């Protein structure tokens, strides 16, 4: 805890102004909802707000370091002092760890922590703290993967993301061993937004948090070192569609405001409980807000961006956002549905059912035909969003705790899974390492070339498939059982059928890794491989941060598969919202 308190002291000492800026929620809220509530001034409980404040404050600090640290040489190419990267990584890791520890501390004393903070703009309740802990944990693992680089000093990011792919400027930057250290402040901003997202107590905070988490991710998606065009395309698509989704969200917020005259969730819930002629307006508004959130979790039919972005983004970023965005967005979804929804559950149920079933079926069915490991995991992520939605749609306390448990375990396994993918690279005939070997063909025989790596990935896949003795099984059991218990048996049955079908594509990767001959450069078989696919993938040597993250998430996955009881109790204890 000393690190946490030290850091929070540091932060509260320095960038007060920037905090106000980034936590634009209160002031914006004041402007928008002044008619609803008259406030003399804002009371902020910094202690309970600290997980978010630490990360955002550190992000600002990182930005300053970035601004001061980089120097420009005469020919216009930036020159970085060697310590810059270390400083940035250090700040990011420390900040996220401190935020996580703070969230854990608050979660352990949850009775004292629970509050409506910043005049209701931020809701600190057990669920918030649990989700903040989950996000911080996954972000910490994700950061380890992001910060890792090969023994040759290459990380996953373009040396200069602004350079035109293939240009002289880019090759110069590469020759000089430049690295894009802006990644770290961006990740911290995103993490801060994610931690605020499920805590939002009114629609404006919710929207601001949504943008704070989204904008850095759009940028980060476009920064891949290899296959840069694919990466930039992914980034642009993500941005365009994200803006589209945000527009629906805002539109919905306007309708809700129109129907209830309120932006604060508790007020909306109170208004929703009273029948009025404006109900359809309110319901449609809520559905539009949900659409914005469905987009973020990657639920069908708002999922189209997922495969393209997951594939194009730098793999460590994919892992980070697949885990953390999902947790954050589902957190917000749960808050909307469980805080506002109870009065409207009759209306929301068919919506949730439709989306859940569509998501599970499409994620599974399309996953069956994928030939790229990253895309495969993207569809897997879609299917998993569907499984979590069955827990959400149960609309019961079991459903809530089941979904929360699922989110945590899935998030951790996802960071680990993408961490492994980041380690499997192509090597050309001269022995030079190239980009990630994501083609399923290239993974054939990996079990022989890198048994530990392949075995680890196999365990993650088994967890995704929901095989007993992995956390994935327990999580699936929890949500499906909640669905059965809450009269959503049909949903659970679709879920079970999809799990069974999805097991096929996970098993396919395992079979490829362990039971199929390698696509060796020497063999004629290699010639017949699809165009554009290089040599067979091999595990590479790096600084070891990635391996640490993978090992930690594997341990978590297995421990919670064998002995989930304590963690289920922990989750259950924190499965409450203020309403």
């Amino acid at each position, binding site marked *: 805890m000393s690190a946490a308190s030290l850091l929070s002291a540091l932060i509260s000492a320095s960038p007060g102004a920037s905090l106000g800026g980034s936590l634009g929620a209160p002031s914006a809220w004041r402007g928008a909802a002044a008619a609803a509530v008259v406030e003399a001034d804002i009371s902020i409980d910094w202690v309970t707000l600290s997980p978010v404040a630490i990360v955002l404050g550190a992000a600002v600090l990182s930005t300053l370091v970035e601004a001061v640290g980089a120097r420009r040489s005469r020919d216009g190419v930036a020159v970085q002092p060697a310590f810059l990267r270390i400083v940035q990584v250090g700040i990011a890791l420390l900040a996220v760890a401190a935020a996580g520890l703070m969230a854990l501390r608050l979660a352990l004393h949850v009775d004292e922590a629970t509050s409506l903070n910043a005049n209701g703009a931020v809701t600190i309740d057990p669920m918030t703290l649990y989700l903040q802990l989950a996000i911080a944990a996954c972000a910490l693992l994700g950061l380890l993967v992001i910060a890792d680089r090969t023994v040759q000093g290459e990380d996953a990011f373009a040396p200069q993301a602004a350079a035109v792919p293939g240009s002289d400027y880019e090759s110069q930057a590469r020759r000089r061993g430049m690295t894009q250290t802006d990644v770290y402040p961006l990740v911290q901003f995103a993490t801060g937004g994610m931690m605020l997202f499920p805590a939002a107590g009114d629609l404006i905070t919710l929207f601001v948090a949504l943008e704070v988490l989204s904008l850095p991710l759009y940028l980060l998606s476009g920064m891949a070192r290899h296959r840069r065009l694919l990466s930039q395309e992914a980034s642009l698509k993500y941005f*365009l*569609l994200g803006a*589209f989704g945000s527009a629906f969200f805002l539109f919905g917020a306007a309708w809700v405001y129109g129907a209830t005259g309120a932006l604060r969730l508790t007020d909306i819930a109170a208004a929703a409980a009273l029948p009025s002629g404006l109900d359809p307006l309110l319901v449609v508004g809520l559905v539009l807000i949900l659409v914005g959130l469905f987009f973020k979790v990657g639920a069908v039919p708002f999922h189209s961006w997922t495969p393209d972005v997951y594939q194009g983004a730098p793999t460590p970023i994919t892992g980070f956002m697949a885990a953390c965005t999902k947790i954050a967005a589902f957190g917000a979804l749960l808050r909307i549905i469980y805080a506002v929804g109870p009065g409207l559950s009759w*209306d929301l149920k068919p919506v949730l059912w*439709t989306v859940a079933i569509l998501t599970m079926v499409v994620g599974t069915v399309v996953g069956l035909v994928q030939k790229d490991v990253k895309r495969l995991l993207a569809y897997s992520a879609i299917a998993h969003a569907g499984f979590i939605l069955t827990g959400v749609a149960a609309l019961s306390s*079991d459903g809530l705790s089941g979904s929360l448990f699922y989110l945590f375990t899935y998030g951790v396994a996802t960071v680990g899974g993408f961490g492994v993918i980041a380690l499997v690279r192509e090597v050309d005939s001269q022995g030079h390492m190239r980009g990630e070997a994501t083609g399923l063909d290239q993974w054939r025989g990996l079990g022989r070339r890198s048994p530990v790596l392949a075995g680890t990935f196999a365990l993650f896949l088994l967890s995704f498939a929901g095989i007993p003795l992995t956390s994935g099984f327990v999580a699936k059991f929890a949500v499906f059982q909640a669905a059965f218990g809450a009269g959503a048996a049909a949903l659970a049955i679709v879920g079970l059928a999809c799990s069974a079908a999805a097991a096929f594509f996970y098993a396919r990767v395992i079979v490829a890794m362990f039971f199929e001959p390698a696509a060796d450069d020497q063999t004629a078989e290699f010639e017949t491989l699809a165009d554009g696919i290089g040599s067979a993938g091999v595990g590479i040597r790096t600084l070891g941060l990635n391996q640490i993250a993978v090992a930690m998430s594997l341990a978590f996955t297995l421990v919670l598969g064998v002995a989930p009881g304590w963690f289920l109790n922990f989750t259950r204890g924190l499965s409450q919202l203020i309403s």
Partner: protein
Amino acid sequence: MINNVILAASTAEGGQAAARSAWLVIAIPLISAGLLLLAGRKADKWGHLLGVAASAASFVISLWVFADLLKNGSSDINLAWWINGGFTLDFGLQIDQLSMAFVLLVTFVGTLIHIYSIAYMAHDRDRRRFFAYLNLFVAAMLLLVLANSYLVLFVGWEGVGLASYLLIGFWNQRSEYAVAAKKAFIANRVGDFGLLVAMMIMLGEFGSVSFAAVLPDAAVLSPTTLTLIGLALLLAACGKSAQFPLQSWLGDAMAGPTPVSALIHAATMVTAGVYLVVRSGPIFEGAPGARLAVLIVGAVTLLYGAIVGCAKDDMKKALAASTMSQIGYMMLAAGLGPVGAVFAIMHLLTHGFFKAGLFLGAGSVMHAMRDQVDMRRFGALGKFMKITWLTMMAGWLAILGIPPFAGFFSKDKIIEQAFVAPAGQVWQGWAFGLVAMFGAGLTAFYMSRLFFMVFQGKARWTDDQHPHESPGLMTVPMVILALGSVFGGLILTVVKFDDYLAPALVEGHHGEPVVNAYAIMAATLVLVLAGAWIAWAKFGSAKAVVPVLPPAADGLVRAARADLYQDTVNHGLFVRPGQALVAGATKTDNSVVDGAVRGLAWLFLRTGGLIARLQNGYARSYAATMLAGVILLVAIVLAGRI
């Protein structure tokens, strides 16, 4: 899953530190096995040392736990609950007199055999892998006996099956060894099916498979249900313990390295079936039919093994037949109820020592004779291998049941108990008693035959043999096991093993045998001596001539040489119809089921392909999909309003 049951690390009877550390007994060899397998060739230099250390550490901790058990009594430790919703599945350990007796046997004999293997496997380039599997076996076996529920037991049960498979096929470059491994695995799977059925019935009836939930309340079930569970458990026990009719795999299992035969296929794993029956005592108490089935299986197997043992010329296969027969004795005793169960476990312990000793001795002989196993090619080895000769003599006298060697105290009691008849069923006492007694005579014959053919008589070696004593790493474990074979039974009797074990068993009442106990003892000894004398006359004395090729013989001997045609019977009864069934099923599967499945898969893949086509990479079409989705959802919600 959602009711708030917190069971984590709670103990039923006090929270002793030692008992709570009992999981280490399992974890240490398991971790060591994992390390050895993951480390690969890098660990070749020190792998065997780590393996021995892990097993020894396990033994030391189990001593600690055992001392704690003696002081504080048994405990049931729930380490974690796994699933809890409508039914409960926990992960926990049960430390009681029965489980600890096994734990000490497994870790002690296991450690000795680990040490022996250092020398025995010294020239094998995969020695590290061998030790990894041995450690895996030890961990799984300990999990099996320490489990506090049938489910955890099943995990261990499968684990030992896996280890056994891996070790029988350790030299899988020889295809007949690989086939033997598969045979063992498949026969075991048949048994596992029984255990699964038993667990499903228990889950249905009790909503739990833990011993604490099932066993004390077993009596509330109807005798029919109990008989069903009992028979299913017996099937499982038959598979694992090589009892009739699932015994055929044990002889072939001798393909594994000899230390494996000693540890897994003689001393420990094959006795797991006996453990299962004894542990499930309350179930069999309420199901006389199932108990009778256990008795019959035990009696048939003990004779079967003995008859086969008389005709085998392969030293290891003769010992395997003997193992089968001795476990038949244990099974018979376990079927006799709580009083018999005590002697079943006692015989299991003494047998663990003398049979492991005999197998290690056999390994030592093979070591000296260039892996020769044909006893017709041995003879006169006693002069060249004094230590092996003496240690095997101890094992031989122990298995014969000559007082005061170990087997006397356990086997004689089983024979005596077999003569005890339940009320109104005097025929049972006579039938099982006489079978057990006759079996003792046969045992004396074939074990003496083995001992004399190997160590006495004239040398019938193939050319170029230079027998020599084995190194100390091999002889020291043999000597220790021999000491156990000499004194084990006496010690167990002096420390009143039956009183020690009683708390772990259901209460039983001592019955009187149908004839005087001393008369039984005397008659048994006479039979044993007669059997040994015949063997001496035919194979041991100076005049005896042992042909180096098996002579022509009558039908029974030919049958016994061929395992009483068990493989042929299996082939005709199960394999052929099975293959026909499989062929038929395959055909149906290919045309009907697969047609449907392929159709479905085709449908799925086509659908997948079609939807994937929507994934065309254009942001505009993605946005259109989203818009369609919005319209759909709004329509749904408005439709609900109207």
